[in-house]
Every structure is written in C-alpha cells, then in structure tokens.
C-alpha cells in the first residue's frame, strides 16, 4: 500500500496496545502510526475496539499493556489533561455544551479562568477567518444546529493548539452540505501539518478525506489500506470479514389505501429545548416503506412518540391506523388495532436492559394478550415466543434467557425488530432502526422491513442514515424543525435535494420572496 504521507515523520505511535475488561479483550496488540499532516481513518464495526483505542489515546482509559510514543518519545497519557498537554485534541460524538450559555461562554469554560469574554470572541473570529469555522460568539447554544454545535467543540479543541485531532463519527449529525464544510476545515488543518484521526463507518467520506485507514475487527488490526485505492465494498468486506449480500427489493409503487395517516398533526414541545411538531401530514400505504430523513433533534423523537401514542395528539383525527382515529388513544390500543413500534433507544426504551429477553417480550406483547392470562403473566408463552424470535431472527447471545443489556447492539435490535415483525403488524413505525448496528445485522433488519411491507404492511422508517433510506424506502420525506416536507418517490430525488431539505432550504427560499 502506498500513501502520499508515507515519507512524513510519525507523530503518534501506539505499539502493542492491549486492553482487557475482565475476560473480554477489547484491544488485542494494536499497532497504529499516525503521521504529521495525514488524515487517518479508524474503521470498524461497533464493538471492534475503536472507542476503546481512542479512549486510551485521550487518557480516558489506561491500557493493560503496550506503549504510546509521541515523536518517538514514550509518553504516559493518564488523563485527558495529560493528553491535551501532549497535543492530542478530541471532538466527541456527543457534545458537552450548556444550552443556555452563548458560544463564547461555552468556549471560555475550557480556557484559563482569567481569559476575558471579549478576547474569546476575538479568537473565535480568528478561527472563523483561518479555517472557515463559522461561529457567532454571542448566540446562545440552544438556538444552534448540530453542525454549529459541533463547530464549537472543534473550536474548543483548536484553541488548545493540538497536533493530533481525533474526531468520533463527526458527520452522523450533519447534513451533506455541513459535512462538506467540515471536510474543508479539516483539509486546512491538515495542510498546517496537524494530523487527523477520523473514526467513521461512512466509507464514502473516508475515501474522500483520508489517505490511510486502519481497519479493526474483534479488537485486532485486520488491515491497513489507502482508502482511495479501495472501493466502499472492499473496505466494508474488511470490516465485516465477509461479503455483504445485496438487498432484494423490487421497485415498488404501492397504490393501496393508506394504512397509517397523519393529518395536520401539531404538538407543542413538552420541554424548553424540545421540538414542536407543526402541521404534519403524510400517509403511508400498505405495501410500501416510507422514509423520513432528517438530522437528529429535528422532531424525530417527538413524531415517534405522537405516532406510538406515548404522547397523545390533540385531536383524535390527527393519527389514523387503518382508517380508525387513534390520536387520543394510548400505545396499547394502537397495538390492538394492529400497529407496532420500534423506538430508537434500545436499552431503556425499547427494552428494559436488566430484564431477560422473555420478560422484554411482555413489554410490547402483553397488549395483544398473547403472553397474559387475564391479569397474570404466562411466562411459558413468553419464553416460547422469545425462543421463536431468537431462532427465526438469528439472534446471537450467551445463555438461555439472558438480560437484554448483555446482547450486542445488532443482536438486541434484531430481537426487538423481531418482537414486532413476528406479529405481522399492519403498521410498523421505526425510529433509527439500524443506528449503531453492525453491517450484517443492519442488512438483515432492512430485508425484514422490505419483506414485511411486501406482505401488505405500511412501514414507516425514521432515519438519519440517508444510505439506508435510499436503499429501502419507496417514498421519502424530510423532517426539519418539526415540519415534514412533501413525500417524493425515492427514485426521483437526489441526495442533494434531500440534503437541502434537511438543512431547511425549502423554508428559507419561501421566506426570501
């Protein structure tokens, strides 16, 4: 493998890194070299050991064995402070910002206490000028989009003048256009000789940005490559270890009656920084997969709660299932009308993490009376139902009836999708169905959704993952600031169209005239 940065000096070198948690080895003798001025991708599925390795590099975890060298000198990174002092900066996937403070105040928090707010503002403007990092110092954070929030985190990181910047899944919350802006900032940083360690599972992006990639699988380095010489498919194969199967989805134009319809649904947010739903209307027909794209925090959770009945709509007629007005009915009655739901958060919402799988069957299936006898629980029925789902959905686990939290993300999600799909519901609503799920399980889940829709069910998928929606959705709409755009046939829209809608372009162009 040849990379353009091969001749450059090695900035950070991790040698023989081992990290064990009890009997589980998260990192197994990992070697990683990052050169000055390179964008280095760290690839791998969930559970491959990426986060553990990065936490070690940032001083959050101590390796069981192995050493880290900085410019050839061994260093001990025992805390994030030590890592920052050594020139390693980190931009986390989840932001740690104070919603009610301004941009400048949030940045000042990580600077020495004697720094004046005005000088912070000046430094922010300097960053904007140098790296195209657009930030308004005096805006309160709660008014900002995810992209702008991420820029605050990047600014915080840059003010420490790092030599290596680690970014963990940075584009998962960005529109395609925001991601482009991020890439140009990162390229400017690289030209200055700073190194970038880029963690992602979006292989397209990795091919655009990075000239070297290290692939982890099962805690070991399985390959290093130059992403520009590889295809997305070949890198995915390295990550998964096998070749992925294509989905079987015939193009489909369902023209049956709407099984799930939403008519003028408006719902004020319950908390200060939540999103209010504004006059949402759409209809999902039997036989189709309907996708709702959008960046996180634009009302997806609120929409899901209103559809599931976890929050009641204002009027009964706001939501219909198979023509029945259910807007004022709770989730169990909606289940009895044939609807099923899979929320985003697996542990804690869709499942109780400390409960066994068969107990988790009860969670949604008690409503339809299959696992209860009057007010008492039919534990045997729940167990046999769990076993059926585990078999037919190929859920891998240890033990007979383990607690939900002991399953990997992909296996738990297969179980939870299986719990709903095995009922053959007439309407299935899912929020981020393959978020944080390994590629093989994700492909499996998507196939099940397509199969269910082809049996006549209306399947609604709310997802941030555009690739996913382009793969499985027959029609698509976009949610932005609690509004849902008009639905369009997937094969008639481009990524750019969707990206603009995700950024709220439609509304702005309307207001401009």
């Amino acid at each position, binding site marked *: 493998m040849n990379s353009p940065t091969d001749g450059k000096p090695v900035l950070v070198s991790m040698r023989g890194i081992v990290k064990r948690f*009890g009997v589980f080895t998260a990192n197994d003798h990992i070697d990683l070299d990052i050169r000055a001025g390179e964008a280095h991708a760290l690839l791998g599925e969930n559970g491959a050991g990426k986060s553990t390795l990065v936490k070690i590099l940032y001083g959050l975890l101590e390796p069981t064995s192995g050493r880290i060298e900085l410019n050839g000198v061994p260093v001990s990174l025992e805390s994030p402070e030590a890592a920052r002092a050594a020139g390693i900066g980190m931009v986390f996937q989840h932001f740690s910002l104070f919603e009610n403070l301004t941009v400048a105040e949030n940045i000042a928090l990580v600077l020495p206490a004697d720094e004046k707010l005005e000088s912070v503002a000046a430094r922010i403007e300097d960053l904007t000028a140098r790296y195209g990092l657009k930030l308004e110092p005096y805006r309160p954070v709660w008014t900002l989009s995810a992209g702008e929030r991420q820029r605050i985190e990047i600014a915080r990181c840059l003010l420490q003048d790092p030599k290596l910047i680690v970014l963990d899944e940075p584009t998962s919350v960005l529109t395609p256009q925001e991601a482009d802006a991020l890439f140009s900032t990162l390229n400017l940083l690289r030209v200055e000789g700073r190194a970038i360690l880029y963690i992602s599972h979006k292989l397209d992006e990795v091919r655009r940005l990075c000239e070297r990639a290290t692939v982890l699988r099962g805690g070991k380095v399985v390959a290093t490559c130059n992403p520009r010489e590889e295809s997305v498919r070949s890198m995915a194969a390295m990550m998964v270890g096998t070749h992925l199967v294509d989905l079987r989805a015939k193009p489909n134009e369902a023209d049956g009656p709407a099984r799930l319809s939403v008519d003028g649904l408006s719902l004020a947010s319950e908390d200060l920084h939540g999103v209010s739903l504004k006059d949402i209307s759409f209809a999902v027909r039997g036989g189709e997969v309907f996708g709702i794209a959008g960046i996180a925090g634009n009302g997806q959770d609120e929409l899901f709660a209103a559809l599931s009945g976890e929050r009641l709509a204002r009027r009964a007629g706001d939501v219909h299932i198979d023509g029945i007005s259910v807007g004022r009915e709770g989730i169990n009655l909606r289940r009895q009308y044939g609807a099923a739901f899979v929320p985003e958060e697996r542990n804690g919402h*869709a499942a*109780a993490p400390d409960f066994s799988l068969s107990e988790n069957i009860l*969670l949604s299936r008690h409503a339809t009376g299959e696992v209860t006898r009057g007010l008492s629980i039919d534990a045997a029925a729940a167990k046999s139902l769990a076993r059926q789902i585990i078999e037919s959905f190929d859920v891998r686990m240890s033990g007979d009836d383990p607690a939900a939290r002991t399953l990997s993300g992909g296996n738990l999600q297969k179980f939870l999708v299986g719990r709903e799909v095995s009922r053959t519901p007439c309407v299935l609503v899912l929020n981020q169905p393959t978020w944080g799920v390994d590629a093989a399980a994700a492909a499996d889940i998507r196939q099940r959704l397509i199969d269910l829709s082809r049996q006549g069910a209306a399947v609604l998928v709310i997802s941030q993952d555009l690739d996913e929606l382009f793969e499985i959705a027959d029609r698509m709409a976009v949610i932005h600031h609690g509004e849902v755009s008009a639905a369009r046939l997937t094969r008639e829209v481009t990524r750019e169209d969707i990206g603009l809608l995700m950024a709220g372009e439609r509304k702005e162009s309307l207001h401009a005239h």
Partner: protein
Amino acid sequence: MRIELERRTAQSPVIEFLAPLLAIAAAVLIGGALLSAIGKSPEQAFFVYFVEPFSDAWSLQELAVKASPLILIASGLAFCYRANLWNIGAEGQFVIGGLVGGTIAVVTYGMDHALGGYWILPAMLIAGTLAGMLYAMIPAFLRVKVGASEILTSLMLVYIAEITLDYFVRGRLRDPKGFNFPQSVPFEDIARLPFLAEGERLHAGILFALAAVFLASFIFRRTLFGFDVKLVGSAPKAARFAGFSEGRLTFAVFAISGAAAGLAGVCEVAGQIGQLQPVISPGYGFSAIIVAFLGRLQPWGILCAGLVLSLTIIGGESAQIAMKVPLDMTRVFQGTLLMCVLAMDVFTRYRLRLIWRRSA
C-alpha cells in the same frame, strides 16, 4: 490516587445471596468498635444482642411480635422501592392507621354492643388500613399532580401524624378516669387481636405479616402489575413504551404501602399495646425501610430481614438494661446496617478499582 467503580459483567448469584449476610457482619464489626469506643465490652454486647434473645420462649415470642409490623410494612414498601418511588413516611401511615383504628375501639368502649360486638375488630382493621392508605395518597397526589418530591412530603407527614396522635390522646380520646395520663381507655377484649400463644404476647398480627409476604411474592412473580412495578423502577421510558401509566402506578404503590403500614399500626394498638398512647411506635416505619433493603426487596428476604431487625430492637432493650448502653445505640446500629446493605449492593454490581497515579 483515584477510585473507580467498574460495572461487573455478570452478577454471581452466590454473591447476591451472601451480600446481605456480609452487610450484617460488617455492621456488627462497626457496632462493636463503637461500643468499645464508649467503654463497653463488645463481646458482652454481642451476647446480649444476638444470643440471649434466643434463650427463652418469651424472647422468641417477642421476636415475632416485633418482627410482624416490620415485615408487614416492609412488604408494602417493597412495591414503592421497586418502582423507584421513595415512601419514607410509613411511620406516619402506621401512626394514622393506629389512631383511626383505635378511635373505633375508644368510641365503642362501654357501649351495648349490637351483634355481640364482633364487628368492632374487623371495622378497626379496615378503618386503620384505609386511613394509612389515604394518608399515603397525599405524597402520591403531590408527586403526580405538582411534581413535589415524595421523599420530603412523605417524611414531613410523619411529624404531622405523630402530633395528631399526641393531640387526640391528650384531648378527646383521653381516658376520663385515667388520672389525666395522656392515654385512652384500655380496649375491650372484643376490640383486641386474639393471642396465638401462652403468655399474652404473640397476637394475630403475625398472620397479616405472613399473608403480606405471600401476597407480595405472588404479585411480583406472577402478575402484570408486579411486572409493571419492577419495569417502572428499572426503565421508566420502557414502562411508558409498554403502555403503563406512571401516575396510576404511583398511586397504586403508595396505596399498597400505606395500607400495609396502616394495618400494621392498627394491629399494634389492638394487639401489643391495647390502648392509644402518645407514642405507639418505636420507629417501626423507619426500621422497615432497612428491612426492605436488607431483604433485597424480595418478600421472603423481607421475612428474614424483619427477624434480624427485630433482634436488634430486643437486643437494644436488653443491652440498655444489662449494660447501660444508650437506646440510641440501637438506632445507630440500624443506620450502620442500612449503610452496609447499600454499600454491599454497590459492590455486587460494581468492582472497586484503585488507580495509583504514576508520577508524571
């Protein structure tokens, strides 16, 4: 040096079982150290606390008598605590139950009883249970409707209950022929719980305690309601997804725990005491919190834990007499026990790691 808690990947059932026993052992060691610090012999105290009560039949009956209210209250509290709702006011619900139930006995005292008066005791039990239940609905209502912390409201209501009892016993319910002592007339036999054994100690209250253990055990293991209680405590969002209403559940578990405490209260006045007094509880409602946790919120565990706590109460009384150890020592010991139980709970779930900072 820094201390980290690392979540254990698997919980060993052996440790789960041993944890409460280890907690008791740790509490005994700490208690012994405290006793020797105030110049008492820990060996003698250990004997007085934990061996003597088993030495005669009277003490054994006393053990069961003191354990009954603890077990009954703690079985009710287990519903609240499993649901992550903190009813700290069982003591108040106990007192109100005793006051309202006892009032019936006082009011009917000396009357010509219709139906031979056999309705009086059941009426007292039902009234006391309902009173405890309604009294517990106050913190439940305040939590559901205005979001007030049930910990504070239920605790504050304890003092109101105690003062209310005190007020009536010194006022309208005082025995007119009682030489102005603040106590009611002694209840008639028809208004008292029957005794189960020789010696006039062990009364029928223990049957309610055992029934509560059976019932709670059945509800937790077999019913959707028991599942719901555990689910709300463990994963509230998942409970909402399962279609359970948090508000309704809050009312239900407070009602159950209040009813249990109220019933225990009326059993105490109709069984053990036989009249109303300004103070009818040596802190049963608070000790029951320890019982609930020492029993790991499992009904059968609560049964054992109730006996352990009862032992400390009886031992504390004997130690006061035999060794002049202040009675407060019993409270201190019970508090130590609770701390040890909670600490053990943490260690069954997490591994403690000390990280020595390498010199940078």
